[in-house]
């Protein structure tokens, strides 16, 4: 099976000072959810924007392979890219408040997608919009189409964003922190909806999040990002059963899980903060925060296999004691 999205050795730099993405590779297959997880500043959103061709001016993107279906995105013109975006390649952003235009009705914004890409009439496009709003669990879609974004709650707006992304039957959906701005109860509803739609429509879903709880519940495959690199990638089951990179292990111990840590005991934590990486940086970016750092870590770090389809970027052997503190 060929992947819907394939990227190899993607780099994004901003000027000569910041290297935001440093050689990441990943694939997303049809019907699969691939989670890109990491803390703020790790380059996960920049990766999404690089795929969509939406990087800010001044950013420089290179890749050995950046392929969506039969399209080589590194060679596609801006016009060709604009034709793909919102059609077979769709994206949902974190802030449903700011990604809808406040001056147009929901119906007009949704219909525009189909009018533009498929050249259908406004009436037909509105029918499709109403159908999709119903599909994402909005009652009385006819009324909602006539409303403006400010008349809708955050959860409803995010449902509108999702249905708008689905207008042209996309094959790849990139969702960048789609529930971060929402309440927990609404978050669960939106994620459940995404999961259902993804299964029914066979979507390839690239889900970007900082929340390992969401990753565990949604992902088929996971790529853990740190300072612009994928430091560990594995199937979701393998990653949570045997996290191998010291950063992944540290991150998992930071999460409070009801009933798992005694209240008078401290949570695990990772000292320090994510470094800013310049283009000439060498070695492991995590070494300043890692309890296992050695002088060798300042040189090139090997990418090793911890199992089938399970890789990590560290010089420690795959079997280093799982119980050991990072």
């Amino acid at each position, binding site marked *: 099976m060929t992947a819907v999205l394939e990227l190899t050795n993607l780099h994004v730099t901003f000027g000569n000072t910041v290297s935001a993405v440093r050689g990441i590779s990943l694939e997303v297959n049809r019907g699969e959810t691939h989670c890109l997880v990491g803390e703020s500043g790790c380059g996960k959103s920049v990766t999404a924007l690089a795929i969509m061709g939406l990087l800010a001016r001044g950013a420089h993107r290179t890749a050995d392979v950046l392929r969506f279906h039969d399209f080589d995105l590194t060679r596609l013109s801006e016009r060709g890219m604009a034709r793909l975006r919102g059609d077979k390649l769709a994206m949902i952003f974190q802030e449903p408040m700011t990604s809808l235009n406040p001056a147009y009705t929901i119906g007009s914004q949704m219909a525009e997608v189909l009018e533009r890409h498929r050249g259908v009439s406004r009436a037909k496009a509105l029918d499709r919009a109403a159908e999709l709003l119903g599909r994402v669990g*909005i009652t009385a879609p006819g009324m909602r189409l006539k409303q403006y974004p400010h008349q809708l709650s955050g959860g409803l707006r995010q449902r509108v964003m999702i249905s708008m992304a689905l207008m042209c039957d996309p094959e790849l959906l990139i969702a960048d922190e789609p529930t971060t701005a929402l309440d927990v*109860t*609404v978050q*669960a509803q939106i994620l459940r909806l995404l999961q259902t739609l993804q299964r029914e429509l066979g979507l390839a879903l690239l889900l970007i999040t900082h929340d390992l709880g969401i990753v*565990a519940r949604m992902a088929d495959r996971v790529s853990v990002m740190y300072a612009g690199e994928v430091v560990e990638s594995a199937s979701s089951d393998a990653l949570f059963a045997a996290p191998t990179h010291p950063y992944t292990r540290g991150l*998992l111990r930071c999460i409070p899980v*009801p009933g798992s840590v005694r209240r008078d005991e*401290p949570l*695990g934590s990772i000292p320090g903060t994510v470094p800013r990486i310049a283009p000439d940086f060498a070695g492991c970016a995590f070494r300043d925060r890692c309890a296992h750092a050695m002088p060798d870590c300042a040189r090139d770090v090997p990418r090793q296999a911890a199992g089938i389809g399970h890789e990590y970027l560290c010089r420690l052997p795959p079997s280093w004691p799982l119980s050991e503190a990072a």
Partner: protein
Amino acid sequence: MTYAVELRNVRRVFRARAGVMATERVVRAVDGVSFAMHVGDVLGIVGESGCGKSTLARLILGLLPASAGDVLVDGRSLASMDRRERARLIQPVFQDPFSSLNPRQRIRDIVGLPLAAQGNVSAAQQRDRVMDMLARVGISPDMADRLPAQLSGGQRQRVAIARALVLRPRIVVCDEPTSALDVSVQAQILNLLAELRRDLGLTYLFISHNLAVVEHIATEVAVMYLGRFVEQAPVDALFREPRHPYTRALLASVLTPEPGKGIPDVGLGETYPDPANIPPGCRFHPRCPLVVERCRSEAPEGIVRDGRLTECLLV
């Protein structure tokens, strides 16, 4: 015995007009909250956005006057204290360490300001107490002359905590203190808050939308819905046996990192709460999966059983 914080049927109403001709919207942000906290308790307050958590925090800090009811801190009415006295007793830590620190002041001046405002501390004493407090929260002395922009989010939140504690208050109101931080940094700050409470004998009011965080730090939890406490219980009891249907839905929404469990169906439907339009009867009834006819007309009274409060007709 004196409670650290006591609220007696506190209400706060906001009136807003969308335009000159528009009808007035009356928002009952806090709609009759009563509780009492012992010294050393950590009361976690959870609820969705718009439920009145932050308004409650501002009422307890004295930043907003109550429309009705009494707020007592250390056994005395907050309304009867002047600002300096209040500041010595109770201090805030806010969510966003990017906007809650003056960007043009050095760290040492930010932390020293509460002392300077008291007006009875010498410059030498102020310097010593600031440096002592910075050391306690894990900020190295060489950072004291930096500006907030030169610090990371976690370091800024440590500075905000140092500023809150420099007057040695008894009570700290933490309003979403870790929500703007990454998980690895969140854990550092939670550990620091727990350590400071133990060492300094503090009482916390801890507001968060993250139930897992509250479970970790709180001794008692209150669940707030449209301006009222619909359930309040010791933390273990609440997580072991949630009684209110809303509490159950909230707990079901916590996504722990356990693969294979999938995304739960919280069963709350599509309606969202609007504090300007509180439903008659039980305020939760439009979303409640267990709703019966009575709930639509009859407002539940809070029932106290085994030291737990629940406000639901079915419990």
